[in-house]
């Protein structure tokens, strides 16, 4: 078990697994509450790159506990709907919503968004696309709920899968958004296949590196605290995996990119 998620669950219900994992306190601690590379700064960069206008209607797909939705409202005055498969995340997001805020949060599946067609100016998905088993379906859903001329904004891990060591392509690595990551061009092709027009690709590998560093360091100190035995060994393995990821980032085999497309 890693933070309440077993490998069996991962194989049978990967989406649910991911949602539960990112809800867990242990994982939030590992990530130092910055649940995607670059934190708020890169979220705002993504919104700007996608031309998200003040007061735009935005859907945040796999919104987690709502930080991005609330940020977009606070900084840009957006009216955001967050959708996530994790019931606890949705609860947390609702609790975190200040009185008078217009952001709202729905329990739902990225591959079947519980939202009407053409009802948003933009759809945003941060560090989550590559965790969806059916990526084309998830992109088609974003394209469906965005009005024609609106935009899709994706931030995700990019990978040259063939160059990655086997450990990073394992089931466990899927949780860290690695095992199913694609190259930036492959993401752009998915957007094109969904009938969207790719606009921009921006690389931010250094931000992923900073995050992987943080996770590796925190796993190593977590290992110091774990009682000797299986738990300590699992943490040690996880730290080794993080170390492999750092290596892969340094070699350019793993990265992080912002992509935008017009619907």
């Amino acid at each position, binding site marked *: 078990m890693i933070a309440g998620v077993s490998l069996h669950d991962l194989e049978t219900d990967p989406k649910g697994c991911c949602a539960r994992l990112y809800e867990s306190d242990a994982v939030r*601690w590992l990530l*130092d509450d910055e649940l995607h590379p670059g934190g708020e700064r890169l979220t705002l960069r993504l919104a700007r790159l996608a031309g998200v206008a003040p007061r735009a209607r935005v859907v945040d797909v796999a919104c987690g506990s709502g930080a991005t939705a609330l940020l977009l409202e606070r900084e840009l005055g957006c009216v955001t709907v967050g959708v996530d498969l994790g019931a606890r995340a949705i609860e947390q997001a609702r609790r975190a919503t200040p009185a008078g805020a217009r952001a709202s949060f729905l329990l739902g599946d990225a591959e079947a968004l519980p939202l009407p067609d053409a009802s948003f100016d933009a759809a945003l998905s941060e560090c989550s696309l590559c965790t969806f088993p059916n990526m084309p379906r998830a992109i088609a859903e974003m394209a469906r709920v965005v009005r024609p001329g609106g935009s899709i904004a994706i931030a995700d891990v990019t990978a040259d899968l063939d160059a990655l060591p086997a450990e990073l392509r394992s089931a466990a690595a899927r949780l860290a958004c690695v095992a199913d990551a694609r190259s930036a061009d492959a993401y752009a092709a998915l957007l094109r296949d969904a009938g969207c027009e790719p606009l921009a690709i921006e690389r931010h590998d250094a931000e992923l590196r900073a995050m992987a*560093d*943080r996770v*590796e*360091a*925190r796993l*190593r*100190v977590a*290992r*110091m*605290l774990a009682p000797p035995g299986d738990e300590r060994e699992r943490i040690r393995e996880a730290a080794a995996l993080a170390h492999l990821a750092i290596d892969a980032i340094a070699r350019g085999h793993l990265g992080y990119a912002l992509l935008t497309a017009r619907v």
Partner: protein
Amino acid sequence: MADLPVATRSICPHCRAGLDAELIDRDGRVILRRECPEHGPIEALAYGDSGRWRDAQRYDRPGASPLLRQTASELGCPRDCGICPEHAQHTCLGIIEVNTGCNLDCPVCFAESGTGHQPDGYSLSLAQVESMLDAFVAAEGEPEAVQLSGGEPSLHPEILDMLAAAKAREIPLVMLNTNGIRLARDARFAPALAALGIHVYLQFDGFDDATHLAIRGRRLQAIKQAALDRCAAAGVGVSLAAAVERGINEHELGAIVRFGVEHPAVNGVFFQPVTHTGRHPEFDPLDRLTNVEVIRGLCAQLPEWFREDDFVAVPCCSPTCRSATYALYDGEDLVPLPRLVDVDRYLGFVTNRAVPDVEVAAALAGLFSASAAGGTERTGDRLECVACGVGLPDELQRIAARGFMVVAQDFQDEWTLDVAKLRKCCVAEIVPDGRIIPFCAYNAAGYRAQVRADLAAGATA
């Protein structure tokens, strides 16, 4: 923010004439360049990486003023020490050299101490040291740290009284800078230091016989080991201080740190590139070691523990003087603190970002200061505050509080003296007449010889 080239002032290493000088970027390294009318062009390596030099400039925090300044600005820096009104920082660490006599005759000694008779040698009285401590307290209010040095201060018959006098003035960190010979030979010395709460700054240059012979002129490894074991038994905290020289012990940086983290008495390692002042080996001023080379060497020798960006430019002095890190160690693995805490963000050097927690920021400022040493109560409290502030679990806070400190400290000599850097110096020699003279000016600008001559004249008068 400063960028290269930078105009500054320096001196001629041959005649000590004050000269206009310039820091320039040459092939990615920072060179201090000037021309002496008599001795021609003079160049020395100031910092080993111009990119890192630029990056470090954002740590150049404005200095604080001492309560008192002892001299007037008349002749221009560095001729008015000190501290004169032009000095841009108070003193984090005061040094008192209680004697010039030593039980070693090291080939490397900026203080030119030794075992033989020295015509200008001296040994201060307890009353003199007390008045110097009082001068330091008057200047600083509540001084953070003082170090008694020499010579070999442990040879001074009143050294314990002098250390006690510093403790009596409620200076939190009182250090004894020693070669460890008395600690090794005198079984009562470490317990006496423990009773006073003294931190030992132990000269410790490496393990190879060749290293000891080149830097100390004697094989000292067994003595160092015995000194450390006595400190461990008595409960005395120790920082290892390694003089590092090109081609002599650069290869032992990793081994020194590994030894230090494993020895129960040791709380930190200070690497000091050899200053080419006083007694020193032949050297090439353009191929000397700076903090960059020391940190790079350490990281290359201990890649599983350190990388270059684990080291933070210490903001109280000029940011190229001192770089430091703290590390959590549990007997198996070592994790540098800056990987767990965004130190930049807390210290407020990243523009347009709010400092997230002022208490954590204050604790970090105290940790990354020239007045800090590993293993002291104050350092432990600050590390615990940081660990708590960034949400480390309780047990980890206790590991963090034992944080191991690693420092690279590049003091200046006649070749590298940069007046702009010197003006922000926060390590200073307290001298018997009550002046407080920035350490690098003391060594490089002629004050050491002057003070010794004055004391010798006073002693014979």
